[in-house]
């Protein structure tokens, strides 16, 4: 579903991402681990065509992102680290608008509320203005936007940073559900624990290079941390 082929991005000659090859298939949760500046966000932004590749290709559902920028976005849902919404509108209204933009302008009120509830947003907040929301609540609307889009691939950029442990756990459950529904998920994260929990594969990045690809099922938590730190310090 998501595929990077020798994907590279340079800024004025400085590599932010070098020769990345990776593939995320339906039912996969691929966790990208790495410090800030490792190239995780760059990878996600390349898939979204917010930036364009210096060389190599980013493919969504077999289509090259730079050639079909709008078509590929139909298959992509995106949850940024900070979900920012229109503060004047309620959570439900925000969701309704983004759903309409993604082509689902036929959701009725019940359906909208269903997505919000499924994302874990408490019922009495559905029709409150987003301006009054906490970060976690906005994040949940972001998840609802992704759910409502019913996209085949999900791009997550540090989605749980700033969420409390309970919300974080709910989020993991939701990711597993989506995985079981056959969504291909690419998640950039600092959170080794979460990666081990939900990931079907884990990639460790450093300075724009994918250093290792691991199967978390074969590792304990301690192993993952040890390997991660090894790659960070050599």
């Amino acid at each position, binding site marked *: 579903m998501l595929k990077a082929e020798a994907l590279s991005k340079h800024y004025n000659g400085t590599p932010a991402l070098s020769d990345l090859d990776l593939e995320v298939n339906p039912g996969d949760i691929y966790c990208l681990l790495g410090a800030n500046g490792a190239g995780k966000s760059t990878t996600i932004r390349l898939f*979204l065509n917010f930036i364009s590749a210096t060389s190599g290709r980013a493919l969504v559902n077999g289509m090259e992102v*730079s050639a079909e*920028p*709008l078509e590929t976005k139909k298959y992509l849902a995106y949850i940024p680290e900070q979900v*920012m*919404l229109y503060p004047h509108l309620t959570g439900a209204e925000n969701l*309704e608008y983004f759903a309409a*933009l*993604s082509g689902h302008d036929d959701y009725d009120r019940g359906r909208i509320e269903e997505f919000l509830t499924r994302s874990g947003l408490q019922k009495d907040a559905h029709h409150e203005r987003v301006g009054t929301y906490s970060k976690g609540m906005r994040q949940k609307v972001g998840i609802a936007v992704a759910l409502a889009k019913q996209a085949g691939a999900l791009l997550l950029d540090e989605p749980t940073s700033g969420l409390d442990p309970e919300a974080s756990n709910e989020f993991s459950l939701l990711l597993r559900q989506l995985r079981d529904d056959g969504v291909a998920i690419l998640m950039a994260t600092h959170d080794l624990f979460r990666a081990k929990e939900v990931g079907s594969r884990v990639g460790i990045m450093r300075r724009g290079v994918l250093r290792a690809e691991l199967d978390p099922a074969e590792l304990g938590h301690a192993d993952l941390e040890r390997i991660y730190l090894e790659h960070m310090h050599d």
Partner: protein
Amino acid sequence: MNGSGAMLRHEFRMLLADRIVWVVAAAILLLTGYSVQVGAAAADHQRTQVEQAVDEERERYAGLRETMTSVHQGEVSPSPFQDPTRPYVMGRARGQRFAVLPVNGFQATAVGQSDLIPPVVPVLLDGADPRGAREEIENPVHLLAGPLDLAFLITFLLPLLALAISFDLLSREREQGTLALLLSQPVSARRIVAAKLLVRWGLLMGLVAVATLLSLLLFTTGIAWQPFLFWGIIVALYLGFWIGLAALVNATGRESARNAVALAFLWLVFVIVIPAGVQISAAFLHPVPSRAELVALEREEVRQVQEEASAVLARYYDDHPELLPEGSVDEVDFQTRAFAVNQEVQTRLRPVRENHREALRAQQDWIRTLRWLSPTLVTHEALIELAGTGDARFGAFEAAVDRFHREWVGFFEPLIYTDSRLTPEDLDRLPVWTFEESSSGAAHAAAPGILGLLLFSALVLGIAMRLLRDGGDRRWTP
């Protein structure tokens, strides 16, 4: 296109949620009402001036007819300076006709040059100069410091109001963080910006059109629909230019504060600097000789010609021996002599006057050519032409006054030289002032402006859309 309706609805809602929009709406409604009232008051003043002149002339002529009848019947014998049966008296102040410019139906929308050129010009043997009060073409200066009429509001203030609600149309989405979620949907930045432009343009256009219609209904006697339609097209395109400019600046991907500064600067350039520059360059490159010099020259000529009065008169009768009354040139009436002197002065001054006019015309042409540098000048020109207060209509008026004056002098000249007397019946044979409005109408007045503004708007929108195309690293992306 998926979500187009939702996008427009959403943008409209976002716009209404912004307090600045309500301030802008209130400003448009109030200022439009006030400015149309200013224009209507100016038009009313002109209408009153014209009516008073026409009434005065009618009453004066009724009085003249009575006096002439009495003189003919020998009941009274006024002094030669008061006697209306003498053509020289009749052709001057006592019998003068007024050349009047009627108020145009759409005049309340722009004062234009109407406060610089008197709409009532007395036409008498000594002369008829509607430019009496008018030193130079004052278009751009007028634009800078003229009355707050609707044309001023549209050209000068409306851009500021439009920029106030569009300077951050894309940068705000980026700054509040919503652009990332927006652009992860299958919609292009072009479409997002286009929806924002359309909503802002529609809102402003609706406000301005409704406010103008209401004000015209309230303050004037009716609406001239054809000029109003073309007026609407001009305003729509002018607004399109400014909102397009906001899109262009936003597409460069700077933050809102910098966009605001850049747009304020561009407003200054197009609305103030270029018009002022055009005016200054016109005064510099095509200076108009001062009016004081002209007056001094006239006095000198009068003095000289008076000294040679007998020679002047003799020359005239040499050319027109059939007109010579009984007796010799030396015995000719004082009034004939005065007329001959005046005619000679006019003849000698003609090249100087012509130079003066030529300089004015050159200045005017220069300004008309350079107006293509700024959409503000193009729009102002089109709006005052539509209102009938621009150079085209006043030029026609001046030419008509000139023709009428020649006709007037031509009528009296043989009567004066033959020292004839007028009868009351002759009053009906005097030349009568008429002014034919140009038949080309509103479309003709608006066409160059529409073309120019189409170009300006297409240019800024084209550049904006090019900067907003997908692919490559764009500064405006989240």
